[in-house]
């Protein structure tokens, strides 16, 4: 089914937005969804979503459980290919090319669009090898260069000072928060343009959560970040833009302050005031 869907996207649609659609309002969107839909078998998980991630900014996606926010995020680096029954329609554009283009190099795409998952998932290897995993995939690399990448990545993720003395110990020995920062460092090590975060703090204690949030704040500007969260305060704290999904549909998308202070839609208002969720 997915194969068929891929075939529908013709050569033309791949570059359609290239010339026709200049950045709206002079803004530079890295990822843009146009009437993007996702189906799991017969279930319409994401309905005609139009969301864009602005370069260098943090976009939060909020909504109650099962609203399709994670599904949408996982489509951005085609992680949903792992699900057999999943198919998509509409367009999802990354710097002008369609992410669902049949000849797209998925492996390369995933290097450009990194991802951090809900639960910290370091490999059962040493801290060093965890960070070096991505760079090594690209081909042989000099030890000194690799050392540099590991250090930079760990520094970026604000983990260097804590682990610099035990780079060779097993990553599973770190605390949950450290593990999640390690996962962020690991994602940064392949120098992605976009960083997708799928509820990165849901498995962490408040202290670790705030460290991660600080980290997101530091990383914004340099990276385009999209973060899925069910924690509205978090979205309000870290993001520049917020998208609110409800039952698969994008209800509202806009600047975070606007959305939280004067929501346009009743559903958004109900959700952020805690009527449901």
């Amino acid at each position, binding site marked *: 089914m997915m194969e068929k869907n891929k075939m529908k996207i013709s050569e033309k649609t791949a570059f359609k937005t290239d010339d026709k659609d200049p950045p709206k309002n002079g803004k530079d969107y*890295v990822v843009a969804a146009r009437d993007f839909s996702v189906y799991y078998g017969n279930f319409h998980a994401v309905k005609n979503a139009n969301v864009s991630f602005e370069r260098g900014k943090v976009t939060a996606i909020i909504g109650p459980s099962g609203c399709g926010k994670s599904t949408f995020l996982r489509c951005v680096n085609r992680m949903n290919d792992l699900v057999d029954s999943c198919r998509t329609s509409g367009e999802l554009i990354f710097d002008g*090319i369609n992410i669902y283009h049949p000849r797209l190099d998925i492996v390369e795409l995933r290097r450009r669009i990194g991802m951090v998952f809900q639960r910290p998932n370091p490999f059962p290897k040493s801290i060093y090898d965890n960070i070096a995993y991505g760079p090594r995939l690209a081909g042989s690399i000099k030890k000194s260069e690799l050392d540099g990448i590991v250090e930079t990545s760990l520094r970026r993720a604000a983990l260097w000072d804590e682990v610099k003395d035990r780079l060779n110990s097993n990553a599973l020995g770190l605390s949950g928060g450290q593990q999640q920062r390690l996962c962020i460092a690991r994602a940064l090590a392949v120098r992605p343009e976009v960083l997708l975060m799928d509820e990165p703090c849901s498995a962490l204690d408040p202290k670790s959560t705030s460290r991660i949030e600080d980290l997101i704040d530091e990383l914004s500007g340099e990276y385009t970040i999209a973060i899925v969260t069910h924690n509205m305060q978090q979205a309000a704290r870290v993001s520049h833009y917020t998208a609110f999904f409800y039952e698969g549909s994008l209800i509202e998308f806009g600047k975070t302050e606007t959305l939280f202070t004067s929501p346009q839609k009743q559903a958004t208002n109900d959700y952020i005031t805690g009527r449901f969720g």
Partner: protein
Amino acid sequence: MNKTHKDRAKELIMDRHNSARKAFMGWLGRSVLLCITAVPTLAIVFILFFILKESMPFFDNLGYVKEFFTSTNWAPSKEAPHFGALSIFYGTAMVTIGSCAIAVPLGITVAVCLSEIVSPRIAQTFKPIIELLAAIPSVAYGFFALVVFAPILQNHGGALISSVIIVAGIPLAALASMPASEIAIGRLFKGAKQTPKTILRWGFAIAFAAIPLWAGFSVFSIEINSGTNALNASIILAIMAIPTIVSISQDALSAVGRDMREGSLALGSTRFETIVKVMLPCAKSGIAVAVILGFMRVIGETMVVWMASGNSLKIPEPFYNFFEPVRTLTATIAGEMGEADQSTGSARYHVLFAMSFCLLMTGMLMNAASQWIGSKKSGK
């Protein structure tokens, strides 16, 4: 800045050539994996084909086939051979039934004990020990049967069996007398006084206990001519089958879940009633699979029966006499193929393949049954 982002993004689209090559490589790798995964399937097909091919010359000859299943005259000589395998089939059935009669109750009891009665820590200790029994090679069991057990059975068989019957039978019989006496009391005198009831209970207990006592004494003086006999093979095969039965039944029992157990206990059932009325019925398909797999292990076993069953071509007399030597299919194949092989193509060679075809069919049917039962369970 903007431009470079877009240029870099364009690199993500592979040209047609690269894309096709990548797709092809993926397809190729997948196909190679599929081919390797198909090895067991190929093996099954080849096994079926070759066993059938080699046994076809035998099955083609209808005179032989009728004799094969109905006669006990086994004389696989070159001149005027006779291939009456009835006694061999009978021996196989006898040993299989005998060992299952020992292994199934014992195995299920041990499984119940491990999953329901002892603490999980003890169960964790015992399970590997019982699994070790499954790991011991069959030839070691055969050696034990032949070198250690057979002489004991031959010299002190009567005493051994009678003491087992008395030691195990009397408590079991006394237990069985209890529900029986309850039923009798319920039928005979409802609401009568205590004294006759007590007398009746004791009477029942003594009567029941007398049965194993009598049986034990009557076998005490039995003379066993050969230590390698159906009983020896059955006992040793039972020991081999028990780990399989225990392991799978225990998994089935553990899978029933706490709520069932607690629900039953909460209604005031004793542990015994909970196990018999709730746990065992719930786990019955898993236990059935366990029994079938144990049965398969027994029927396909070669070394133990070859060494312990005595390899006699007669049907025991009387037919239930477990003290007589018997012969099984597997032992016949193992024992005679060495001689038959020297003249490949002889009738004897093919009849042994015909026997293994029968074994293979039984094994496959059993396996299909266990998979069917297993899938029914998971479908629920």
